């Protein structure tokens, strides 16, 4: 151990984005020398090493160069400059079942795919039954793969890829496919690989998964490495980065129009939490206050202030308003401030979005600020998921045989 398994030596990858792609001779001649394109450096001088037996997670937003990096490591793409040195047998789970031939049976495809991944016929013979077992295809192994369901397809792809007995396993977000049970099974296999001392190279934008399986995290942004740390610190960098990127993206919408039927508007929204001032995220169970300022042009009776918290993928975490709290507010003309205070927020990891709004008792919406705030919670512990629960564990001797 201690050897370097994957040595990424200052690789850069340039893509040319053509506004139109000319591939016929006629077009090439017509447009010779003046094809408009933009250059995009998908990877910009990326350099780090992965030691043998290490599990490294690559974190980054969409378009940060994660997949390009993986493709360079797998050899599907060649870097524009620099090189990747890979020591040992590498198997890539870039896209499961990518090399399958539609017309052939599952059985034939296992052999074909196996040889694509560098296995000899004898090697495949030896693991064939295990592949069929793992993929749960049973008798369907002799059907043409074009008749497979997408689940069957992916299962067979994964089974073949891990049966190569790789020294280095490269996993792109393939675990996102397949049903939950199969995902667990795949993750189980990956963890087993870890224990066996294989090197694993992992790409995801689920920080939770990095915490679960990785020793180290590398954070990419716009083709550059912006952090290379032990997993939990890398997740922190990733979160901080998301906050900054989010702030830039959530530019304020044009000034709210004060229509006669909208006599009140939100003027400011702010979030204060236990870590305010010292860090851009809060810890589970810290207090939090959502405060918004308003300005009313007139006196309004029975105003409802509301807020809601969503995850990035749009799942509602929590929402409430003053009507639910049975606190109808009568607002006088002029500006004012209201706040929702939480003594403790039982959330685990998350980079959530907070929406706020003001409406009338009857549901007329006066003003809304979507994505007004970002709520970043970082979990220092090992528990996983959205919600910070505090389990009490008890063992009673009688329940054991």
């Amino acid at each position: 151990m201690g050897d370097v398994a994957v040595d990424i030596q200052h690789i850069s990858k340039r893509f040319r984005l053509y506004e139109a792609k000319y591939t016929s001779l006629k077009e090439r001649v017509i447009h010779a020398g003046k094809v408009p394109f933009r250059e995009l450096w998908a990877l910009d001088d990326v350099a780090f090493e992965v030691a043998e037996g290490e599990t490294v997670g690559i974190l980054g937003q969409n378009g940060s160069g994660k997949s390009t990096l993986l493709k360079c490591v797998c050899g599907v793409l060649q870097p524009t400059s620099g090189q990747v040195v890979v020591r040992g047998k590498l198997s890539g789970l870039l896209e499961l079942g990518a090399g399958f031939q539609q017309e052939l049976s599952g059985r034939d495809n296992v052999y074909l795919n196996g040889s694509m991944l560098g296995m000899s016929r004898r090697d495949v013979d030896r693991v064939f039954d295990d592949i069929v077992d793992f993929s749960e295809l049973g008798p369907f192994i002799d059907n043409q793969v074009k008749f497979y369901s997408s689940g069957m397809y992916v299962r067979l792809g994964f089974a073949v890829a891990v049966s190569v007995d790789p020294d280095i396993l490269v996993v792109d977000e393939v675990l996102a496919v397949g049903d939950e049970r199969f995902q667990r099974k795949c993750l189980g296999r990956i963890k087993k690989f870890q224990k066996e001392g294989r090197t694993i190279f992992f790409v995801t934008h689920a920080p939770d998964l990095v915490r679960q399986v990785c020793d180290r995290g590398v954070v990419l942004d716009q083709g550059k490495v912006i952090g290379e740390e032990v997993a939990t610190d890398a997740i922190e960098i990733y979160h901080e980065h998301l906050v900054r990127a989010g702030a830039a993206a959530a530019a304020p919408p044009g000034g709210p129009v004060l229509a006669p039927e909208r006599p009140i508007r939100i003027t400011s929204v702010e979030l204060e939490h236990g870590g305010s001032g010292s860090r851009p995220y809060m810890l589970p169970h810290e207090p939090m206050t959502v405060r918004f300022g308003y300005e009313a042009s007139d006196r309004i009776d029975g105003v409802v202030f509301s807020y809601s918290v969503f995850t990035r993928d749009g799942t509602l975490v929590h929402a409430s308003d003053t009507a639910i709290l049975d606190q109808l507010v009568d607002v006088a003309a002029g500006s004012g401030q209201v706040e929702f205070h939480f003594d403790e927020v039982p959330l685990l990891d998350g980079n959530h979005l907070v929406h706020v709004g003001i409406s009338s008792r009857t549901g007329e919406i006066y003003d809304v600020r979507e994505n007004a705030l970002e709520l970043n919670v970082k979990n220092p512990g090992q528990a996983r998921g959205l919600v910070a629960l505090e389990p009490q564990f008890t063992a009673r001797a009688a329940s054991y045989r």
Partner: protein
Amino acid sequence: MTSASSVDPGSPVSPTLLGEDDDDEPVVRRRRSSDVVRVVSARKPVHERVADIWRARELLVNMVRTEIRVKYKSSFLGMLWSMMSPAMTLAVYVLVFQVILKNGIPNFVIFLFSGLLLWNLFQVGVQTATGVVVNNAGLVKRVSFPREILALAAVGSASVFFFFQACVMVIFMVVLHTSPAWTLLWLLPVAMVPLLVLASALAIFLAAVNVYLRDTQHLIEVLVGAAWFWACPIVYSYQSSVAPKLVHHGLTWLYFLNPVTPLIMTFQRVLYALVTAPSTVPPHPVEHLLPSWGWFTYLWADGAVLGVSLVLLYIALVVFGRLAGNFAEEL
């Protein structure tokens, strides 16, 4: 499920890799199974590319097998088509040249077949290979393997069909009671090897170029299928039809710039074997159908073609290496 401790340390594939994950099972830290160091970089020297191709030879075999199986899987007559289509071509040429134009070559079917056999391998191989990277875009974008294998597999499957057609040719020869030049049979592989090298060189080169210039495919169909075919002495005899005129104009060298020509003539010399024969068309003058060269001339000519082809193959590999880096983006 056997325990992981029973893994044979020497075997590259452990039998316990698959199966349900089981945490209770003792896990043995494994040693690295291979010390192969692979370098991914934009510039890879040709000898390393060749080494990569050699390591992937089993993939080549599998791809050839796949292509043949897929091609005829859902057609009723299957493999028979690979023989039917050249047989039809053969029939048309016999009808046109022997029956209608009365070229007077005795046993014209065998003459034609011996040249066509080799030509079909060349043409089918090169033409299929030209489109092969583009047609396998999905694979090229997702799986890493030496891309040259795709082009070589096209030549490989053309070679398999060559073998089927050769069997048909043997049947023809038996039926028509003709015999090859038995003492010169060894010249057949001598001509085959340069042809395979030449076809591979063109296949690799064109497969890469076609990714950037998709016209190549159509251009090749016309150039190889029409022009190049007629530049080879396949449907006509070099010695009786073109040689006198070429000598007259001093252009023999030009004709032999076509590297396929000597190879086809070697096949004709061995399989057709009639150097001189009386014409089948009255008044039956004795025709010189094949050059009266000794075996050494054939050996020398084929050797020269081999030399040229190897140079071309090297150039093709260099060009392919330069272009292959951007395949995944261009497709």
